């Protein structure tokens, strides 16, 4: 790991920012004692199960729950008629039935729910519910959906002189498949009735307050009657941004008066949560002879599947970021999110930026070839920088945006030896002994990607946090979701550095005890909840110093000119000092008709260089090495940042060479870990990461969010490397062996 241009930190305290203290939940996690949502148990608890539609599109003629209710141990069978409040849910547009009423619109849509004494009985009862379907023709083609006007959002971004033409033009059509988050912990949770008509829900989610909003409405309760608590979360990556079992669990608990637990198995998890939008993308790039990109025309269709979820925002990213981090004086970009009977698509790491990066980076390589220019030179020649205008929205990029530095520092890293050697473990296909050294061809691919940080397009995006100083130390309270990324550690570090006191406890509190922290998505929590904690902690420090006229604070107490004038116990004798802050990033605006405006709070850029060995005859690919450079603002916890970079990069590699949900006529054909392939440790290449530290304009100590950038250009770089090794066009990700072999 290399770091460049470190930002000076304001204060020195053990375990503060810029260091990599261990995570406070690490010991329970390595000992198997950490309670994930699926580990919760409660006295007299029932188990829930879900009846799901086997058809992507059908009319429900009747539902007979009697056979299920007749099974011993079954306590409840509920259908759409039993939804007490709003019958639909959804983050932006509440268009998704809590339980399907007269129609099902995607494969796996929930139709009924049951509660029983144990899991086996609950599943048996779910299978015994008799649903009569009148099967309808599914609409599964996004282009057909567009023709029929079945769209969630249609955008047209126009900028510059539409007649501007370049001397050199390249065109291409690209596709990316449907990708699953495959977080290791499946959806699970526990609902406990409070005995007074209300309910407590303990759940793995990315945003308790958004869940709360949707849950109480559908339960027909007052907001105060529902409290949502964060359980231990086994990864998220976007899959937990939309509701799955939240309302169902509460309905069953309220109906039976008993605690109810639900845990999805893997197949159900694949059916229940949203996926990464599959994309179809048509591109035309034009450049002047010196390589200056002058015109990009593109049309991108993202299939949103059956319900809205976050499609409006995903297609916005796909449209606004369709050119990449490059100058371009004339753009014409059409973005369409379609409505079909495919499984709903929504949030996944990279959120719309990943698909278009695959296409625009392939186009940049084609353009370089047509120009006879080095592809890295071409990218540098067109690289945007802070203060420039984004070619689509016209927004002046505030904060840091070191595109050229990211490209240069990555290109400067050494390349590995050319010879893969004879060890079959280091050849494509591995110890299957499929390949041999003489057949292997090496390729190198380079790609750059970027996206915005935090929410956009005038969304009122904020995070609340409370910081309290007691004689024992600091307590940070937040409702932000720790999904594994290490927010819990970084909040400790920020509070330590801001106050000068090492002991910090972070408490994740329920929706009744603090305001929203916003979603753990859009790479936003380090900046947003981190920003709230920094401000609250700084105010706590100021107040405490003011009480005794001090000029510094430490675990010893208030200091003046280096001498302790009061211990913490003395200065806090009248009670703890507490501050609560609602932090907002710079406001963003509503887009104009043509997509203009200051739509985004900030941006981050990353690049990848992949080295692959390919057996072109058998279509086998081994990613030998993957180097990356990323714009991180300030690495508050370098080890955590590297963890995000490595994990995010490997997800991109998975999308390049193995991961795809195979969907035929709206039906998912590979909803299991046997058939949906995920990268293992054998697929993980050696990786070196360069972290570029140029402080951003908001976010604590200049930090940027780091979760999504590593997933954006990783897929594009791997596929570019395979193109270089094989000479094949490879315009679709993931690439399949037959694409590589050309059969």
């Amino acid at each position: 790991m290399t770091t460049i241009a470190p930002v000076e930190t304001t204060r020195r305290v053990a375990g503060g920012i810029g260091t990599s203290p261990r995570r406070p939940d690490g010991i329970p996690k390595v000992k198997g004692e950490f309670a994930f949502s699926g580990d919760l148990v409660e006295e007299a608890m029932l188990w829930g199960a879900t009846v799901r539609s086997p058809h992507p599109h059908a009319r429900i003629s009747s539902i007979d729950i009697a056979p299920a209710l007749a099974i011993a141990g079954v306590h409840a069978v509920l259908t759409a008629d039993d939804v007490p409040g709003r019958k639909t849910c959804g983050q932006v547009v509440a268009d998704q039935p809590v339980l399907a009423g007269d129609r099902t619109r995607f494969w796996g849509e929930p139709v009924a729910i049951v509660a029983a004494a144990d899991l086996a009985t609950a599943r048996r009862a779910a299978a015994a519910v008799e649903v009569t379907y009148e099967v309808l023709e599914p609409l599964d083609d996004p282009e057909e959906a567009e023709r029929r006007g079945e769209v969630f959002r249609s955008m047209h971004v126009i900028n510059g002189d539409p007649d501007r033409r370049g001397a050199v033009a390249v065109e291409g059509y690209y596709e990316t498949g449907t990708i699953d988050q495959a977080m290791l912990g499946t959806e699970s949770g526990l609902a406990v009735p409070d005995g007074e008509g209300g309910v407590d829900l303990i759940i793995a989610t990315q945003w308790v307050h958004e869940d709360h909003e949707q849950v109480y409405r559908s339960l027909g309760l007052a907001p105060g009657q529902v409290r949502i608590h964060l359980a231990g979360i086994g990864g998220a990556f976007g899959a937990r941004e939309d509701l799955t079992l939240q309302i169902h669990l509460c309905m069953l608990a309220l109906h039976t008066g008993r605690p109810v637990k639900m845990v999805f198995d893997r197949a159900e998890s694949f059916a229940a949560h949203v996926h990464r939008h599959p994309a179809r993308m048509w591109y035309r790039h034009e450049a002047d002879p010196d390589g200056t990109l002058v015109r990009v025309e593109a049309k991108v269709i993202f299939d949103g599947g059956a319900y809205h979820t976050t499609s409006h925002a995903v297609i916005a990213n796909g449209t606004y970021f369709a050119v990449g981090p490059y100058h371009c004086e004339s753009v014409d970009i059409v973005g369409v999110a379609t409505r079909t009977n495919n499984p709903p698509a929504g949030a996944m790491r990279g959120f719309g930026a990943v698909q278009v990066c695959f296409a625009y980076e392939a186009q940049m390589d084609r353009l370089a070839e047509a120009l006879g220019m080095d592809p890295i030179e071409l990218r540098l020649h067109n690289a945007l920088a802070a203060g420039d205008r984004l070619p689509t929205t016209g927004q002046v990029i505030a904060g840091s945006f070191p595109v050229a530095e990211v490209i240069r520092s990555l290109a400067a890293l050494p390349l590995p030896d050319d010879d893969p050697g004879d060890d079959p473990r280091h050849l494509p296909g591995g110890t299957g002994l499929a390949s041999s050294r003489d057949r292997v061809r090496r390729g190198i691919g380079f790609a750059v990607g970027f996206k915005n940080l935090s929410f956009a397009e005038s969304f009122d995006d904020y995070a609340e946090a409370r910081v309290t100083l007691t004689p024992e130390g600091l307590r940070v309270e937040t409702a932000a979701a720790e999904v594994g990324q290490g927010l819990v550690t970084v909040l400790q570090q920020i509070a330590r550095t801001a106050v000068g006191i090492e002991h910090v406890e972070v408490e994740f509190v329920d929706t009744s005890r603090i305001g929203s922290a916003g979603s753990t998505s859009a790479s936003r929590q380090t900046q947003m909840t981190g920003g709230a904690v920094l401000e609250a902690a700084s105010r706590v420090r100021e107040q405490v110093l003011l009480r005794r006229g001090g000029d510094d604070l430490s675990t010893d107490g208030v200091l003046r000119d280096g001498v302790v004038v009061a211990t913490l116990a003395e200065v806090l004798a009248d009670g703890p000092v507490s501050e609560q802050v609602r932090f907002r990033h710079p406001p963003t605006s509503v887009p104009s008709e043509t997509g203009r405006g200051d739509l985004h709070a900030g941006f981050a850029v990353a690049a990848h260089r992949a080295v692959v060995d390919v057996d072109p005859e058998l279509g086998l690919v081994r990613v030998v090495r993957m180097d990356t450079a990323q714009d991180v603002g300030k690495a508050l916890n370098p080890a955590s940042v590297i963890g995000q970079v490595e994990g995010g990069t490997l997800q991109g590699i998975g999308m390049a060479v193995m991961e795809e949900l195979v969907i035929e006529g709206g039906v998912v054909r590979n909803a299991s870990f046997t058939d949906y392939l995920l990268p293992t440790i054998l697929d993980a290449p050696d990786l070196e990461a360069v972290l570029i530290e140029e402080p951003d304009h908001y976010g604590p100590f200049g930090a940027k969010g780091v979760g999504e950038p590593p997933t954006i250009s990783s897929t594009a770089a791997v596929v570019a490397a395979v193109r270089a090794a094989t000479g094949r066009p490879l315009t679709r990700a993931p690439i399949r062996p037959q694409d590589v072999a050309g059969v």
Partner: protein
Amino acid sequence: MTRLIVNGAEYTAEPSGAESLLTTLRDRLGLPGSKNACEQGECGSCSVVLDGDLVCSCLVMTADADGSEITTVEGLAPAGGLHPVQEALLAEHAVQCGYCTPGFVVAAAHLFDTNPSPSPDDLKEALSGNICRCTGYGAILRALTALAGEAP
């Protein structure tokens, strides 16, 4: 009635039909450390040591394990301390969400029992049945490579 010796303690359980050892451990014996992420032997989250062999407990029928000695993640750390594999993973920041972690701990501890100084390739081979979706495996490999280097 099935008799199991888990982490040195004796348990009896009445598993229903084809109940898996993973379900018995988690739901009957109060040992939720072993995780369920696929129930198909694909992810290693449920790894335990059964009579000396590393197995996916989701693929073992409890009834077939009658009389067996089982070590789960809960049985690896000495009282008040950590197993060297646990310590190594923490030191290298190899834990994110931690859902895969018990499986990696059990699989790696089993490997080090038989081979105290595995090479990086040995480690990769031995851990190729464990899926981690968060870390990209870099920190896990660094942690265990460092531990292998400490072997006498």
